[in-house]
């Protein structure tokens, strides 16, 4: 009988610390599957962010480093420049990549560093208890926008993917989501593209993943998936941006 499903070598067989219905587990697994499929486990170096996913190294079984909050792409830049034969990627949340680390993000992209970036957008700060993120939707209630985000007070949801796409050195930007089996498969395809771009020395590649945070959206896991499709995707439309 043919074996069609295995546990990825790049993913440790441990129980998760993530909340029920969280998207990180799915995204972690997709990364691990792709690293196995592309045969790059022994060359991989991941930069884990400050945020819920800092513990990604407890799940991934290859070399990893932490980076200070927002500085993932500064750390990754140095690693890739010194070890161009290694496979280097960052995995960052919305606060890390698009608030405190916006500067590092834009400049690494503008330098055209040959890196792959996985940007998990769940429109909220998870680790610190559900405060407003740069990507929080208008009207969305968070611990620091208790009456809902207001454009006049808090600005609009930041579309970092569209901003990055205008830079000449950025080679690939796609926005995907994790709300359905089909969208998970599309997410895997997009991350694969970003990974292959680095392997083929194409340059800076960026995948934004709309990911559920049921705990701080105040929704059941199934409702959170529906919220991505019915609400979040209206503000953050899926598809290849560049």
């Amino acid at each position: 009988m043919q074996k069609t499903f295995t546990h990825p070598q790049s993913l440790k067989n441990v129980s998760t610390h993530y909340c029920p219905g969280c998207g990180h587990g799915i995204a972690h697994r997709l990364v691990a599957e792709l690293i196995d499929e592309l045969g790059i486990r022994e060359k991989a170096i991941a930069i884990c962010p400050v945020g819920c996913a800092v513990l990604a190294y407890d799940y991934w079984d290859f070399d990893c480093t932490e980076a200070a909050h927002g500085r993932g792409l500064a750390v990754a830049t140095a690693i890739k420049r010194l070890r161009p034969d290694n496979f280097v990627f960052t995995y960052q949340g919305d606060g890390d990549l698009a608030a405190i680390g916006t500067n590092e993000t834009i400049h690494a992209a503008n330098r055209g560093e040959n890196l792959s970036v996985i940007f998990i957008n769940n429109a909220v700060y998870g680790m610190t208890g559900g405060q407003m993120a740069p990507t929080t939707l208008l009207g969305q209630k968070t611990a620091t926008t208790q009456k809902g985000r207001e454009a006049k007070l808090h600005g609009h949801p930041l579309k970092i993917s569209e901003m990055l796409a205008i830079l000449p050195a950025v080679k690939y930007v796609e926005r995907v989501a994790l709300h359905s089996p089909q969208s998970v498969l599309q997410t895997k395809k997009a991350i694969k593209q970003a990974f292959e771009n680095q392997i083929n020395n194409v340059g800076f590649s960026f995948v934004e993943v709309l990911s559920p945070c049921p705990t701080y959206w105040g929704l059941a896991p199934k409702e959170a998936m529906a919220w991505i499709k019915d609400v979040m995707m209206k503000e953050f439309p899926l598809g290849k941006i560049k």
Partner: protein
Amino acid sequence: MAKKILITGNEAVVEGALAAGCKFYAGYPITPQNELIAYMAQKLPESGGVFLQAESELSAINMVFGASATGFRAMTSSSSPGISLKQEGISYIAGAELPAVIVNMMRGGPGLGNISPSQADYFQATKGGGHGDYHSIVLAPGSIQECYDLMLVAFDLADKYRTPVIILGDGLIGQMMEPLVRQGAEHKVKDYAKPWALTGCKGRKQNIVRSLYLGQGALEKVNLRLQERYQKIIQEEQRSQSFQIEDCDFVLVAYGTMSRIAKGAVLALRKKGIKAGLIRPVSLWPFPEKIIAEAAKKVKAFLVIEMSYGQMLEDVRLSVAGKAPVHFLGRGGGEIPSEEEIVKKIEGVNKK
């Protein structure tokens, strides 16, 4: 005979870094250390290293974090306000037990201050600077030659103890020119094994570079390891230079630029028949407490001289431990106490 070259302190730092096998530099321009970054931009790629002008000081220090995590020798440089911005990153480097060299050519503060030489960042450099219980080793060059020599020491100590090492100079040391003799083939870069480095997990288990330790007691264990290391550094790495202290009544204590003026004052005082001597701390952390404590048994008084309002003064007092009076002379805001002021101060103490 080795060839002498005329060079600034900022450039001598680069020459020293290259001789030490530095392979990575990231920095952001700030006066008075701009000659360093420009010279590095030219020289480091020539020797096969990576030079990056970062978008900010924060980015630069975190690039150094990444570079060091791969096992290569890495450094950054800046001046006072820029070094303040790097403090979080230095704390992460200390927490992750990574080697790194950070050069601070100090200028006047606080705030934007000015671009004149200063020694007002002593507290920041020697007492940690960033958050958490950590120390950086701090070395203070007193000449252009020492800017070079101490870079070799700095990279070795950083690798040996897996810790950040700060070179604490000032705008004068950085921009002044003096002859430099580069060490030739006799200098060998020590090769430290770095089994913790990120190289890809081929043939071994996963490596993780981290400073996050959750779970009861996990972080305390790391801290105790660091404290044990710091005790070893305190015992083994105190560095200083003394001048005419064997028979002296008054010991001047000054480092860096200030020590050169203090040396002139020692000679002037001796001409007037007052027996003065000088202790110049070369390592500011660990502070050379042993030699100060030893001198405290014999002399009438100490005079600490700084281009600040009294920062190293506290470490001298702790080392003297009440065994002799400790006087102070200092100026801030980018001003420098003169030889005449030092002589006058000692003459005043002598009369009492």
